[in-house]
């Protein structure tokens, strides 16, 4: 196909080396400019200072990263289960969809920062992690629900008739036609939700505030209050890495599941 020459080793190497080189150039300029203009670390720390802060606070930052990651993963998994289950219910009962969908939208469009204090009060400050989980779940849930609903509904009408012709049961239609058809949609929703679950966890931690929260977001607030800007950057870096890690993991899963049959994930090399 047209991308036949996109797969030469040189092209593939360029795909990795180009951004890497740009990143290194950016970091070097950053380091140089900070030294050249003698910028104070509490305004903008040099990359080397951030690296040092990362090493110095490694243990506590890792504990925090794990706390944030745990909330993110749990919220994501619950959003996946809840979103798919509710979408399946919606396609089985039009009545249920009509009744419930508006509330799912309300939940989605209300800013999570605005509900966070309420949820915290309801759940109680002694169970902050549960509150964080609920908040991250609220943010992560909707993309899965709406994508899955779309995927379950957009089956080929001829295939539906074929299933009807052979007297397929509702269960067979669901498991052999609708769910496989929805798989690419669910995976796309998961990629959005994975990132959102992390954002939800971080925002909830910010709101939960002092003492109670132990995640990376709280490390950022804490370091900011103490003007430990390099440590703040170090926590920020870890958060970005978590987000990137989640995205790549889900992209890999998508590739694994769809590469044989779906246009979005066909191996470039197999063309």
């Amino acid at each position, binding site marked *: 196909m047209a991308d036949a020459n996109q797969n030469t080793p040189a092209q593939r190497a360029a795909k990795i080396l180009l951004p890497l080189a740009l990143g290194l150039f950016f970091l070097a300029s950053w380091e140089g400019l900070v030294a050249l203009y003698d910028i104070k670390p509490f305004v903008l720390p040099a990359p080397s200072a951030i690296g040092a802060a990362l090493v110095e606070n490694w243990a506590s930052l890792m504990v925090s990263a794990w706390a944030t990651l745990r909330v993110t993963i749990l919220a994501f998994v619950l959003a996946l289960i809840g979103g798919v289950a509710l979408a399946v219910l919606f396609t089985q009962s039009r009545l249920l969809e009509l009744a419930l969908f508006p509330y799912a939208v309300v939940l989605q469009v209300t800013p999570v920062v605005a509900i966070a204090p309420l949820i915290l009060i309801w759940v109680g400050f002694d169970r902050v992690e549960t509150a964080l989980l609920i908040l991250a779940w609220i943010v992560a849930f909707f993309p899965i629900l709406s994508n899955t609903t779309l995927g379950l509904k957009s089956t080929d009408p*001829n295939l539906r008739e074929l299933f009807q012709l052979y007297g397929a049961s509702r269960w067979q239609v669901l498991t052999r036609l609708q769910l496989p058809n929805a798989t690419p949609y669910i995976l796309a929703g998961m990629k959005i939700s994975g990132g959102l679950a992390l954002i939800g966890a971080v925002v909830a931690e910010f709101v939960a505030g002092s003492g109670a929260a132990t995640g990376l977001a709280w490390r950022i607030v804490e370091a900011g209050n103490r003007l430990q800007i390099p440590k703040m950057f170090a926590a920020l870096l870890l958060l970005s890495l978590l987000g990137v890690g989640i995205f790549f993991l889900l992209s890999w899963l998508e590739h694994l599941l769809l590469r044989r*049959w779906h246009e979005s994930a066909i191996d470039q090399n197999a063309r």
Partner: protein
Amino acid sequence: MGDAQSPLVTIDQAAKTFEGGVTAFENLSLTIDRGSFTSILGPSGCGKSTLLRAIANLTGVTSGSIGWKLEDNGHDSIGFVFQEPTLMPWATLQRNVSLPLELARLPAAAIAPKRDHMLALVDLSGFENAYPRELSGGMKMRASIARALITDPALLLLDEPFAALDEITREKLNDDLLAIWQRQACSVVFVTHSVYESVYLSERIIVLSERPARIVADISIDAPYPRTQEFRLSPQYADYCRQVSQALRSGISI
């Protein structure tokens, strides 16, 4: 083939009007004999696909009736081939072909030999584990035919199955279809808008008018099977084509 003269499908005074008020066909009576090869020919949008779907009981008729004399009068005895191959893109070829039997909850051990037989019949052995997107249009259509035949249906319905294919693939599949029909001893109802295709394939051609469709001609093609390229070049073939073509034109009001 149709010598048995025992009716398989009896359409009696059938009419179909959609909710919007469009009438697909009306006052339509037709008997399809066991083992016959019948083409339904008509201009585009004349309601011939709707008629086919009504025969398969995928849609109801507004008045009149459509009766089957299938062995068990069930769905199992009808095979349907759509305009597009209509394969499940997420399933391998063998899973696609065995779908009707899987839906009937047959054990895998009972499905495997039938599936392999069907794949061999349509010349797709060796592609068991290929996904639809990896196959050509003609191969996908053959897989679709194999799927329709795997239940060993008494009646095979095809809705312009080769319309999207190139001429050479189309002629090849026409021959394949005739060979399969003679071997399987099923009845075939073949919807098409191609005069040449219908004359080449059929024992009998039902020509429909524009919508609302009614039968304008019922033409028997008295030429022996197996039909070959020689038949396509014969004066007899040309005569039939002219006759069918005239009938088709008589049903259009331009």
